[in-house]
C-alpha cells in the first residue's frame, strides 16, 4: 500500500471522523441551547401534540403545493431512502463497519438489490440537482455551498459505484477519500439537515401547537 493510501486509510480517516462527530455535536448542542423569548401567554393547546403533528405531517407536502413540487418530492424520497439503504445494508459498508468501527455486522442486502437501490439513489440525486438548477425559486435560494455539498455526495456515490468490482485498491481508497472529504464538509454545510430536520419541525410544531394554531 502506498503512503498516500495508508494515510487515507489511517490518520485521515480518524481525523475526518472526529471532525464529523465533534462538528455535528457542536452544532446540535448549539442549536438546542439557543433560547428564544419566553412565552408569557397561557398555552391554548398542547405543544407536544403540535410537535408530533408537525414532525409526522411534513413527510407529505401541504396540499396547496403538492402539484408544483411533485417531482422534487418523489425524487427526494428515492434519493434519501436509496442512500440510507446503501449506507446501512450495502455489503461493502457492512463489512467496513464490522472491521473498522463496530466489531460486528449484520445481513447485507443481495448484490442485485444493491445495484437497483444504488441506481434509484442516483436517479433521485440527479433529478434533485437538476431541478434545483432549473427551477427559478430553488435556483435563487441555492448557494455555492449547496452545490459543493451535492457535488461531494455525488462524487462519493460515483466513486463507490466505480469501486463496486472490488478489483482495485486505488478505487477503494479513492472512494474512502471522497467520503472523508464529505465527512469534513458535513457539519459546516446544509447537509446538517440530516440532523436538523426533526428539530426544526418540532420547534415549529411546539410553537404553533402551544398557541392552538393548526399547521
Amino acid at each position, binding site marked *: 500500500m502506498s503512503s498516500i493510501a495508508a494515510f487515507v486509510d489511517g490518520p485521515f480517516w480518524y481525523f475526518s471522523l472526529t471532525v464529523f462527530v465533534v462538528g455535528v455535536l457542536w452544532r446540535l448542542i448549539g442549536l438546542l441551547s439557543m433560547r428564544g423569548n419566553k412565552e408569557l401567554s397561557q398555552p391554548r393547546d398542547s405543544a407536544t401534540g403540535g410537535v408530533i403533528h408537525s414532525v409526522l405531517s411534513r413527510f407529505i407536502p401541504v396540499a396547496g403545493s403538492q402539484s408544483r413540487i411533485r*417531482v422534487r418530492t418523489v425524487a427526494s424520497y428515492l434519493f434519501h431512502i436509496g442512500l440510507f439503504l446503501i449506507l446501512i445494508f450495502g455489503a461493502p459498508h457492512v463489512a467496513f463497519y464490522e472491521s473498522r468501527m463496530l466489531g460486528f455486522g449484520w445481513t447485507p442486502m443481495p448484490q442485485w438489490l444493491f445495484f*437497483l437501490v444504488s*441506481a434509484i439513489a442516483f436517479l433521485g440525486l440527479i*433529478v434533485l440537482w*437538476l*431541478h434545483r438548477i*432549473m427551477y427559478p425559486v430553488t435556483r435563487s435560494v441555492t448557494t455555492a455551498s449547496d452545490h459543493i455539498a451535492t457535488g461531494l455526495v455525488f462524487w462519493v456515490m460515483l466513486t463507490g459505484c466505480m469501486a463496486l468490482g472490488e478489483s482495485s485498491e*486505488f478505487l477503494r481508497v479513492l472512494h474512502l477519500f471522497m467520503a472523508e472529504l464529505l465527512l469534513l464538509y458535513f457539519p459546516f454545510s446544509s447537509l446538517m439537515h440530516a440532523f436538523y430536520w426533526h428539530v426544526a419541525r418540532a420547534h415549529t410544531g411546539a410553537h404553533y401547537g402551544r398557541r392552538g394554531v393548526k399547521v
Partner: protein
Amino acid sequence: MSKHRRYRRALRWSLLLLALVLVLPLVPYAVAAGGTQFNTPGVELWDAVRARVQGPMRTQVEGVQSNQLINYWGDQWRLFRSQLLVPIGAVMLLAMLGIITVFYLVRGRIEIEGGRSGVLVPRFSVNQRVVHWLAATVFIVLGLTGLVLLYGRYVLVPLLGPEGFGVTASACKEMHNLFGPLFPVAILAIMFSFGRGNSFRGIDFQWFLKAGGLFGHAMADSGYYNGGQKTWFWLTVLFGIAMSVTGLILVFPNFGQGREAMAVAHVIHGVVAVGFITASLGHIYIGTLGMEGAAESMTNGYVDAAWAKEHHNLWYAEMERAGMVGVSPNTMEEVKRHDDRDFRGFGQPLGRREPLDPTVSPPNRGPTGGGISPAATPSAPKEST
C-alpha cells in the same frame, strides 16, 4: 466574468471533451501500425480443452449451460466484435466527426438573421429540461464508459499500461452496469415529456425537402418541433428501447438467458450504441456550436423571439397571438409560467388551445428578423387573445 464569456468557456470545454472522445478511436490504428502485441493468457490451455470437447459435459455445478465447457458460437460473437463492430464503429464515429467539421467550415455557425431581438419566448418547461438533462447525463455516462469498454483495450492500454487500464475498465464496467437501469427510466420520461407534438405532419416533409434550411438562408415552415427534431425524438425512442431491452438482458443474467441470447443481445446493443452515439453527435453539434440561440432553450428554457420566428415560425406566430412573447426570466411570472404547463399546445393542430384564427397570417420572416411587436417586451403590457 460575464455570463456570455462563461457560456463560451463552457462551450469550448464541452467541445474539447467531445473532440477527445471522438479522436480516441483513432489510436488503435496508430497502435496497430506500431506493432503492439497483446498477449492473451491461457490460449494453449483452452486450445487443449477445445480439442477434447465432444458434447455437453456432466457437472455438479448448477446454472444455465454450466455443462457446456466451450461455446463455439461465442467465437463468432468475438470475431464480430473485434473485426466488424470495433473498426466499423470507429469509422462511423470519425465520419460523423468529419462531416460535422466540414459542415462547420463550409456553412459556419448558423447565426440568427438580423441578430437577437432581446425579447424572450418560453420554450421548454422545468420538467422537460430536467428530463432532457437527466437523459443526457445518463447517456453521456453510458456512452463514455461504453466506448472505454469497446475501444479501451486499443486506446488506453498504450496510454495507461495494462494495470492502469484494468482499473479504468473495472470502474467503467461498474458505472455502465449501475447507470444502465436508469436509461429505460430516462427514455420513458423522454417519451412522456416530449411525445406530444412529435408526430410527423405534411410540413415536416417540406422541411426535409429544404434540408431544414441548413444549406441556405431560406428556412422551411415549422411548428413547435421541426422535421429534424422529430426524427431525433423517434430515433431516441427506438434506439433507447433497443438499448434498454438488450442492456437489461446483459446486466441481469438472473432470468435464465443463455449465452446465445446474451451474445445476440450484445451484438444488437453494440450496433445500436454506435449508431446512437454517432447520431447524437449531430444533435449535440446543432444544439450548441452549430446554431446560435438553440442551446438556451434547454438551459434557461427561453429562446430569443428572432430565433423562434426564424426556425419555428408557425409556433412563434401562435405564441405571439397568445400573448406569450416577451417574458422576464427570474421573476414570479416565470415561476407561474413554468409550474404547471408546457408550451407545446402552440403550433400543434390538435392542441388543447383555442382554435387559431385563420385570418391571421404568420409573421414575415425577413432578413432582419423583425415583426416583433413592441407590446411584447417585458416592460410593456401584453394583449391577450
